[in-house]
């Protein structure tokens, strides 16, 4: 199955992310979900936290069509993969995650891309060791609220 192209451009997305903004990350079964139905910490790559940023979408601005296309493409890449759900987390909650020195460990940056102006990234504030990043991603995963449908995620 060929991938579906998506070219959606939204204007007027503010560069500043408010503290009460909700961020969305998509999770797939079986890769991101453990045997009890919980999100695996590996759904958050340590390297992404450290350098590239963990991709999320800003709920207030992301187009439903963009998310649907993204899911369609990801599911098409592997036969047994299917949508597990959406993880929702507030910007403020991300900022509440602390490192071993009790300092704010993560921050969120607006990172618009060509077909998704609502794209943002979660990044570590310091150059943490991999073991420290493992702790941070566990704390992050535990704070995602999971919902099953795109309607719930965007409501």
């Amino acid at each position, binding site marked *: 199955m060929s991938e579906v192209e998506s070219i959606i451009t939204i204007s007027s997305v503010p560069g500043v992310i408010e503290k009460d903004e909700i961020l969305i990350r*998509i999770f*797939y079964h079986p*890769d*991101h979900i*453990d*045997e009890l139905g*919980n999100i*695996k*910490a*590996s*759904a*958050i*790559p*340590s*390297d*992404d936290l450290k350098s590239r940023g*963990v*991709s999320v979408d800003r709920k207030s601005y992301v187009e439903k069509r963009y998310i649907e296309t*993204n*899911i369609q*493409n*990801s599911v098409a*890449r*592997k036969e047994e993969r299917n949508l597990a759900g959406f993880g929702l987390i507030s910007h403020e909650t991300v900022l509440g995650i602390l490192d*071993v020195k009790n300092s704010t460990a993560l921050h969120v940056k607006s990172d618009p891309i060509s077909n998704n102006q609502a794209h943002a990234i979660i990044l570590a504030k310091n150059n943490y*060791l*991999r*073991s*420290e990043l*493992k*702790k941070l991603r*566990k704390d992050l995963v535990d704070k995602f609220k999971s919902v099953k449908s795109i309607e719930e995620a965007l409501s």
Partner: protein
Amino acid sequence: MSNEILERQSLYSQTSSQRVPGLIVSSTLAFATLAAPLSLNNLPTYIPPNVSSELIGKFFAIEQENVDKQKLLYTIRSYSTYEKNWDGYEGVPPKNKTISDTTHFLKHLPDNIKLPYAGLSGDGEINLFWDKDSIYIDIGFLGNNKFSYYARDNSGKEISGDDIVISDTLPTELINLIKTISI
């Protein structure tokens, strides 16, 4: 040598020396066709009738552990089929060395422990997780012959390690923590 290994050897030696009606066990073989090439370890096993039920129970527990470990190894090997952008977030597949490092580590875990579950990260890292009894362990492999880990025991005490060379000897405090997780 542990009692369980001695018991297992005893069971196998009885199997080969007696020719009486008994039970043929093939649970490992059933999965072996999917998970690993057929080997002597995967052949069906004959259990004679005069073996105690207690010993048979232990045998099945060992067999089940073998099957679970084969399934886990199969999952880890399956990561080699993943393509670039497998997760929709530009994820990369693991290197072959990452898979071999992880399987090497797994094979050196002691018997009779709760087996971990595996996860693949978008950065190509393979992880082994335990998350039970309020104990959390995350061990990661990147294919550089080393691993890193973060763990938290049921009192909240944290332990961690970075750039640990993979060898036949595993960090004592990590193994001790794994052993406390109920099977």
